[in-house]
């Protein structure tokens, strides 16, 4: 019995963290947030094999497991790195492989980092207002909101029946407009389809579910990394900052906030590991665990984001320290692919409750 990371996984984690320490420091994130590109970071992550993680070796990938993807997501969240990881490396490969279709060329291009695949699943999870897509005779019409990766080459789009289609970003019928959100570390877009060529990837619910479960665990892992980083910053700040001739971290009012954050966050690490492991090895538990992990990390992440900002006092509220990038990333992870109440209801239904 061994519950935790293997030596290979610790090595993977160290490698990705070291790369991101050098290539995605806060200043670099700010450049992206101010309108810059993430293409250089993604190209170098491709050198490390990151987009190829979940793609089988036969298709030019590395053939690792969901838990490995969760480990990388945690590193990216910790560094609030701007990358198309969630769509291109996690959800798209999961859906394409699960579909059983012949997507060898596309998977090889994803693995090489030369093709970015965006995800527009919002309408299949919970359709807001008048968004939604319809497909007839291979042509798609309608609108997807909050699709992620603003610079994708192709998109996987899900309709309300959880059927998945592939559309090309350069299709003349596709209009892509930027949707500003609070989270400046990743960009979302609105996709408007006007008679766009749509290739059917899957009409099976199981394919959609595989992609959404993996995506939710990856988002939870991203929040885990971001929240741990915020907690670490708060503890460090509380040790340095002095008031009343004492480090503020020696006041119980402050140190108890840190203890509460740590106490809530520590079990989350085990939960993310288990959820990742379950996706590959425990099909009976995988779906409920993915829902609960997504929802629980959203709650703990929100608590840590607020509390660690408070520990920083007024500085936490400024742009100077930059904590707000983590705060907003955690906020975005909470809403993407299903907000907590929505996902918990799904967990109940999955248990026959």
């Amino acid at each position, binding site marked *: *019995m*061994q*519950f*935790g*990371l*293997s030596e290979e996984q610790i090595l993977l984690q160290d490698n990705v963290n070291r790369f991101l320490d050098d290539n995605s420091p806060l200043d670099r994130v700010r450049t992206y947030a101010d309108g810059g590109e993430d293409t250089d970071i993604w190209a170098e992550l491709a050198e490390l094999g990151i987009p190829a993680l979940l793609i089988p070796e036969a298709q030019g990938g590395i053939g690792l497991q969901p*838990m490995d993807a969760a480990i990388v997501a945690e590193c990216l969240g910790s560094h609030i790195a701007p990358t198309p990881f969630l769509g291109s490396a996690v959800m798209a490969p999961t859906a394409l492989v699960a579909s059983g279709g012949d997507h060898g060329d596309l998977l090889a291009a994803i693995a090489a980092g030369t093709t970015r695949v965006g995800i527009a699943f919002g309408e299949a999870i919970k359709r807001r207002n008048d968004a939604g897509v319809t497909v007839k005779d291979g042509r798609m019409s309608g609108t997807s909101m909050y699709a992620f990766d603003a610079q994708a080459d192709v998109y996987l789009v899900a309709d309300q029946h959880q059927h998945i289609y592939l559309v090309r970003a350069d299709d003349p019928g596709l209009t892509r407009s930027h949707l500003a959100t609070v989270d400046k570390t990743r960009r979302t877009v609105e996709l408007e389809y006007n008679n766009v060529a749509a290739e059917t990837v899957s009409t099976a619910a199981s394919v959609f579910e595989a992609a959404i479960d993996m995506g939710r665990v990856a988002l939870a892992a991203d929040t885990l990394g971001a929240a741990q980083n915020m907690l670490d910053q708060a*503890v460090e700040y*509380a*040790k340095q900052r002095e008031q009343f001739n*004492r*480090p503020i*971290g*020696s*006041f*119980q009012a402050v*140190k*108890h906030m*840190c*203890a*509460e954050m*740590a*106490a*809530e966050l*520590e*079990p*989350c*690490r*085990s*939960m993310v*590991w*288990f959820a990742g*492991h379950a996706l590959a*090895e425990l099909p009976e538990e995988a779906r409920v*665990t993915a829902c*609960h*992990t997504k*929802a*629980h990390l959203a*709650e703990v992440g929100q608590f840590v984001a607020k509390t660690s900002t408070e520990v920083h006092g007024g500085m936490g509220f400024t742009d100077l320290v930059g904590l707000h990038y983590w705060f907003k990333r955690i906020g975005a992870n909470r809403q993407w692919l299903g907000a907590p*109440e929505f996902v*918990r*209801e799904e*967990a*109940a239904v999955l248990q026959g*409750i």
Partner: protein
Amino acid sequence: MDLSFGPEYDDFRADVVSFLANNADKAPKGNDLRGEAAKDWQKLLIENGYTCRTIPKEYGGYGAEPDILKARIIAEEFSSARVNGGLGGQGISMLVPTLLEMGTQEQKEQFIRPTIHGDMLWCQGYSEPGAGSDLASLTTSAVLDGDEWVINGQKIWTSTAHIADWIFCLVRSEPDAPKHKGISFLLFDMKTPGIEVRPLVDMTGVANFNETFFTDVRLPKHQIVGERGEGWQVANAILGHERETLAPANTAQTRINALIELMKQETVNGDALINNPVYRERLMKIQGKVMAMRFNELRILSARLNPGQDPGLARMITKLEGTELRHDLEGLAIDVMGEMGLAYDDNPHLRNSGSWQREYMYFLGLIIGGGTSQIQKNIISERGLGMPREPKFEKAS
């Protein structure tokens, strides 16, 4: 990641399950510490190695090598079958491990067998009215007079003192030494003249706690565990372990499953509570937390089995998180039942024998006892996160 325990353990689990299937009807229902049924059940469990498993045979135990996974399997199966896992009490859970580690040969031979067989019931004399969270400031005095210790002072929260045969007690024997170095760990008979026990009724309505007064209580000099002035180390040898086991996640899992059943059966205006969206949401939120704590425990288990694996803060947070979680869980059951959730004592409408209210309050007791939540937060922040300690103030003279 490898969650399997291995075939040897699958066989062991099957043995436990079959033992439970064949014998569960003999198990006593309550937490009786003295009755014959409880003692007989205890003997049967020891014979089969399901309690006191690693206590040597020469002291009346089962005598198995320590095996973390087997201990875990026993706990899991007894918990999920909701069968009494044997005698509890602080003699078995705290004194016996302490004696095994630090007691003399005579002490082991004299005390362990009768304690684990239920013939000798112990109480613990640690806390005092003036020494709660700051336990090391205790003032009950022990003065050596010839070959006897003479004890004077008062203890509080002494569970089962009113029925206990003996007490293990922390006393100040070296008044001039620094506070952590002036304490000794003594053992004495509760029938010794000079002991007065006054029951302390707790909020659940039970008088399990007591105030215990000592006036010139005399006991032989050799009834000490460890050396003079080493009592603090003796007591701390196993305290951390107690904290971790106060609110195990598998019990929380059993309770949330019971709550789901309750919510399926109970109705309001003819509709099952489980269909109420607000209650469902609260239920699922707590289920998610229970799940996180279960996996946290797996990580602790794994770190014990695989030296070199870092459990992070996983162990340090279990008392704080586990007790608060159980309090919330039991409280949700009361909320969903509305006024039916208030049922207590002999109310004919009790659900699950009134356990929801009882456990709701009992876990508030555990949030406070065994190191309060606030003390836990000090430990987590200072020892876990390396934050600066609160400045210490010496007692004004």
